[in-house]
């Protein structure tokens, strides 16, 4: 069994496995810390800065992001000091200036007493949490999309803004986006994502379009399964004996 450590979060004693992050430990203890770029399936990234907490360890006090900082024996965590709240408020005002409408953002903002951004809204939709880029690289393993440019002109893009050569149209980026700004559509056997049309394959059993041809090709290549495993849709696969 992993080593356990005891820490306090907002005055409550909490035990957690060594190596877990403060955010995970807090979640397990039902203490809410708002966050936007963290995702259990992905490596921590620490870019939105919403999950900041104030810690005291060996008498030193400082702000850290809870999605990366790990628990430690005797650590004292405060999730809502004035300094922490000020960073969170600033972050939400700034993010609302990129995306003023998404319910999840509005809900987090409301929790901080913010109704609308104090800054002029220049709607960009994407809040640059990087989950799409990371899921594509870390989980799917193809890195079809990435970031372009720097500073406030940073944006998620395909290489050279052209149809993404490595994209397998799996849609992971679309599903993972916390603010739903990566469009994906399916019509007449064609999936459209990143402004590119991908033909779908029909299930060899039921005949329904079920997945992009490119995605199936990719899976056949990386998965150690019989060639014909990916000829059928998930429904028919599970009923087939």
């Amino acid at each position, binding site marked *: 069994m992993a080593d356990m450590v005891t820490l306090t979060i907002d005055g409550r004693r909490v035990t957690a496995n060594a190596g877990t992050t403060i955010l995970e430990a807090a979640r397990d203890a039902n203490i809410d810390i708002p966050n936007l770029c963290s995702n259990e399936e992905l490596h921590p990234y*620490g870019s939105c*800065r919403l999950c900041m907490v104030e810690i005291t360890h060996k008498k030193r006090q400082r702000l850290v992001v809870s999605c990366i*900082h790990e628990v430690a024996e005797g650590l004292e965590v405060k999730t809502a000091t004035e300094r922490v709240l000020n*960073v969170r408020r600033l972050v939400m005002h*700034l993010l609302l200036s*990129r995306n003023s409408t998404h319910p999840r953002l509005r809900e987090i903002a409301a929790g901080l007493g913010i109704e609308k951004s*104090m800054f002029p809204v220049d709607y960009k939709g994407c809040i640059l949490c990087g989950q799409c880029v990371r899921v594509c690289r870390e989980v799917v393993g193809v890195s079809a999309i990435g970031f372009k440019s*720097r*500073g*406030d002109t940073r944006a998620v893009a395909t290489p050279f803004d052209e149809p993404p050569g490595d994209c397998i149209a799996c849609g992971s980026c679309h599903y993972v986006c916390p603010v739903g700004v990566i469009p994906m559509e399916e019509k007449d056997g064609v999936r459209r994502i990143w402004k590119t049309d991908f033909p779908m394959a029909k299930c060899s059993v039921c005949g329904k379009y079920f997945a992009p041809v490119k995605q199936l090709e990719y899976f056949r290549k990386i998965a150690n399964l019989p060639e014909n495993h990916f000829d059928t849709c998930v429904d028919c696969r599970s009923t087939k004996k």
Partner: protein
Amino acid sequence: MKKCKSASELASLREKLAAARDPKKPTIVICAGTGCLAYGTQKLIDNFRAEIAKRKLEGTVDVRTSGCHGFCERGPLVVIQPKQIFYQHVKTEDAGEIIEKTILGDAVIDRLVYRDPATKEKILHEHDVPFYKKQMRLIFGMNGQIDPRSIDDYIAIGGYAGLAKALAMKPEHIVDEVTKAKLRGRGGGGFMTGWKWESTAKAEGSPKYVICNADEGDPGAYMDRSLLEGNPHSVIEGMVIGAFAIGSSDGYIYVRNEYPLAVTNVTAAIESARAYGLLGENILGSGFSFDIKINRGGGAFVCGESSALFASIEGRAGEPRQKYVHATDRGLYDKPTCLNNVETWANVPPIIVKGAEWYASIGTPGSTGTKIFSLVGKINNTGLVEVPMGITLREIVFGIGGGIPKGRKFKAIQTGGPSGGCIPEKHLDMPVDFDELSKVGSMMGSGGMIVMDDRTCMVDVAKYFLKFLEQESCGKCTPCREGIYQMRTILDRISEGAGEEKDIELLEWIGTGVIDGSLCALGGTAPFPVLSTIKYFRDEYLAHIRDKKCPAGVCKKLITFTVAADNCTGCTACARVCPTKAATGEKKKVHTIDQATCIKCGACFEACKFDAITIS
């Protein structure tokens, strides 16, 4: 050249080389630093060689091209040894005359001699020039004594003696020595170098890496460049000593991509150090092996930040990564890594040679040794200056820098690079030291110093630096990416006369959040120029906001250029320079400026010799 297989072989080589350097032999030392080369120094060097050949003096007069001397604005610089005659602004065609008059004869060429702009006094010798006189050129002074491409020069003046001494010491004693010397990192943070070495030495994992950070991206700063270009062996020697102390076999020098001469000189230096047995396998027969690779920088300011630098060497995008584990435990390729700045490494050999006690006696208790600054802006003598820590800002600005040109008034000095703070006159007598600078809202940073006079607008200054940082922010984290942008927008508004009083508070609030919330130190320090100017020059902000005036006469939307009829002689200078023909008038008659077409470029103001253009 055959390899030196032991410290004693190196010592006898040094003796031989030093003996060959006849101190009485006339030598023409020509600065071949980037600054001087930009003035066409290469032609001057060629011409000196040609003139010497013409007179068949090859055996009797030496020509030595050296690294940067620091006083770049006076280049091309030539020093005639052993007489130590200092010539400035030397032209290619002066070579023959210098040989005839100053080397063969005993005359000094008046027009090439330096004149103190303050006293108009002629100064013959380099060490008497006030710019140099008040400096303490522990690290940088060697530049003038050696040809950066000659390892022999470096060895002759004592180079690699520190390495020889270190290899005979226990690694932990070397670390102790550096800790006792209280050397602090010159790359910005001012972290205790000895502690960093100790942590890396104790960390588990192998290989361990030793890295030299030569990314130097601050606008206007070029001290690291001049060190690498002018004395690459001092940096290499420091790194080998550090590597031995830490137990590392692999080193990198991460050089800014725009520094081709530095890359060339370091590459040559690494090769010659290898050939001499001072780098590579079995260094000086000690059994210790260490080698250095050169890595070209990723081309962004943020690549100088440690985690971004590691990512860049690893071949990933040069973006900072948040880690709560020190690089000394998990740095490059997640292995124990010791990253130090160019100047930090160059300080190591003298510490080992002369001892920690000697080193710690220079400077202040908390900041020991010297620091190289790049002194620029509204100041008479610009260039690179090396001073003992603890010197006052006033001594730098008025002693070494020679004060403010055109008799104008000092207003502020910005220290620490783009995200440093602006320090006002009332703090000029403050000692320059890591902690003192932080106390007044600025920092040592990498050593940029920009002097501002009373015609500098502090709102404009804050806007300028923020603009730079806005463009250099990698964009990964929200506070830095969006916060700096919003702060800059507010400053734009204020400088256009559209600011409100609550904007000042708002800037302070955003600034604090950006400092607290940003992922790396770029965002973590970016608001300093704004916060420090608000702190010390709040009235100037208020003048922009309440009175819609820019007291320094800089913010275009808030000023008008007019002609003072009493002073105007009708010389037509303004009309000739005005790009939009807004300034007009007949010869010998009072001129006028049409406000509708004036674009407020200030060209007329600069051109008028009679103080007839007024800014209001």
